[in-house]
């Protein structure tokens, strides 16, 4: 904590300045001659970046704080998007009501699925979520009467870039502030305790199931909200553009790049990833996902602490570093309550 307070004041000041600066962008577009340097595409890009920040922060609640690394997080985005899509185009609900409905549907789905899936641990949870993602995409394809199947749905067009810019900006500030606050509450501490040692937490009186399901639903709600907004902004949805495999990977890379389990990590990671990718995207469109894969491997193998971890002096290392340095046989996974040792690894016939 060397020079902690000054550093904090300076970074908080910079953060506020950055938010205020960003908030003026649509004004510049509106009042400057020819929009100044701000174009609709600038606003659109920032909106996408805010969305990535929000989703990354919500993913970090389960993956970073609670230690349940979710490989299918895009499913909540997709359900949120389809929620708005169906409610608006099939039932003709107005946008705000449809968004609320979409979030409610997402939370309901998360609570229903979370019951069984959160009983799985470690890689079993991660991969069950990946399967959920793939499965929901297929289900959306199948129930054509509701979702339009592979053809997709067209939403009432509404092109107002500044509106989406402000909604997502405010949401990003609110969500990040919320995670910052949550991390400091008893609830947040409990999530960390579950990550560090779930069995121990259970045996010390913590209702781990309740906490896991709550945070899972919360994370799904936030991501579902982003999906709901995205669908309306995009005005068209189909299974392939909503349930893109790479969306979950973007989120995971953003969080790990920034620093898993930290509040600032998802924000920094999302900003860096978004602009780095924008440069790559612009120049080598077709290599984008290949580079993304290489980046993921490189971060995991060489910079597991992420940006936040590398530039701070946190004792005891960061979450990913901790989760990674943990050997499989060590406590805080299921073994070592005294029951026989490691995962049995055998080859038999």
């Amino acid at each position, binding site marked *: 904590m060397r020079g902690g307070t000054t550093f904090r004041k300076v970074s908080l000041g910079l953060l506020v300045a950055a938010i205020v600066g960003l908030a003026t962008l649509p004004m510049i577009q509106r009042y400057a001659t020819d929009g100044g340097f701000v174009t609709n595409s600038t606003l659109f890009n920032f909106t996408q970046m805010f969305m990535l920040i929000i989703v990354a922060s919500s993913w970090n609640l389960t993956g970073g704080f609670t230690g349940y690394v979710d490989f299918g997080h895009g499913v909540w985005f997709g359900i949120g998007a389809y929620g708005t899509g169906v409610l608006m185009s099939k039932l003709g609900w107005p946008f705000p009501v449809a968004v609320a409905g979409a979030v409610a549907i997402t939370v309901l789905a998360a609570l229903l699925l979370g019951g069984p899936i959160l009983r799985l641990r470690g890689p079993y949870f991660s991969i069950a979520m990946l399967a959920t993602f793939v499965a929901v995409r297929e289900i959306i394809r199948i129930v054509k009467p509701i979702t339009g199947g592979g053809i997709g749905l067209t939403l009432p067009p509404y092109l107002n870039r500044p509106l989406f810019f402000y909604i997502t900006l405010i949401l990003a500030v609110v969500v990040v502030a919320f995670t910052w*606050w*949550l991390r*400091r*509450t*008893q*609830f*947040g*501490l*409990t*999530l*960390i*305790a579950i*990550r*560090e*040692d779930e*069995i*121990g*937490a*259970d*045996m*010390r*009186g*913590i*209702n*781990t199931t309740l*906490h896991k399901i709550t945070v899972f639903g919360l994370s799904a709600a936030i991501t579902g909200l982003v999906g709901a907004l995205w669908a309306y902004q995009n005005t068209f949805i189909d299974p392939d553009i909503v349930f893109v495999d790479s969306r979950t990977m973007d989120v995971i890379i953003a969080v790990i790049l920034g620093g898993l*389990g930290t509040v600032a990590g998802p924000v920094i990671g999302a900003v860096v990833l978004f602009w780095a990718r924008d440069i790559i995207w612009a120049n080598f469109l077709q290599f984008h996902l290949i580079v993304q894969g290489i980046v993921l491997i490189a971060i995991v193998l060489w910079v597991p602490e992420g940006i936040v971890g590398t530039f701070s002096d946190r*004792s*005891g290392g960061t*979450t990913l570093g*901790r989760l990674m340095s943990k050997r499989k046989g*060590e*406590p*805080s996974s299921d073994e*070592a*309550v*005294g*029951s*026989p040792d490691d995962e049995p690894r055998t080859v038999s016939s």
Partner: protein
Amino acid sequence: MSGIRILDARSVTKRFGGLVAVDEVDIHVDQGEVLGLIGPNGSGKTTLFNCLTRVHNIDGGSIEFKGKDITSKKPYQVARMGLARTFQVIRVYGDLTIEENLVLSQQWGALPTHRSFTKAHRDLHDKAAEIAEFLLLSKHLRTKAGTLSGGQRRLLELGMTLMPDPDLILLDEATSGINPSLIETIKDRLAVLNNKGLTLLLVEHDIRFISDLCTRVIVLNYGRKLADGTPDEIKSDERVLEAYFGDDGSTDVE
């Protein structure tokens, strides 16, 4: 043995596949006593602990705690009833500070309330500070538990069990891998606690530790109860000596 029976387990049986790890064991703990549970490695001590704290579902028998049947309760419910424990392999929340570790063990994170705004929270933090002082951990209150030494983490674990004012504490090898001076500290703290009326059940390898603290000792071997008596009776029991130093050489192979 006088006093109220605080824990009463009858014919507890636990199987893992074909192996009977705990075989019809009767065990009871009376209010205020320090009961030792010993036995060669693999004799079922930790499994019995896990059965009592509801980590394992038992395959037979019943467990009563403070007169209530807990056979089908969840581990966290049993903990909230006042049955606390430590673990053979130390379990603390490495990324949280000592203070946070202690506070969580009482508060159970039920509500997302902000730290230290309410009186209840201030009391909780005062209590955590008090317990940390009792266990000589005061100066590490803001240190992350993951950076403590093994002995300090043992003490912290003990502190975490103390936070919710339990009626019974199960200690699983509180001295293993700890340097001798800290063992004395732990022993001393346990004696103080027992004098204040806390009931303890210890699994221990250190026989001296057991005979210094315990009023009664139970010996397990191959999942069965082999003997039950005062430390002196146990020390002179033929069957116990046979189990420990007999032909199977299982004393130090897990």
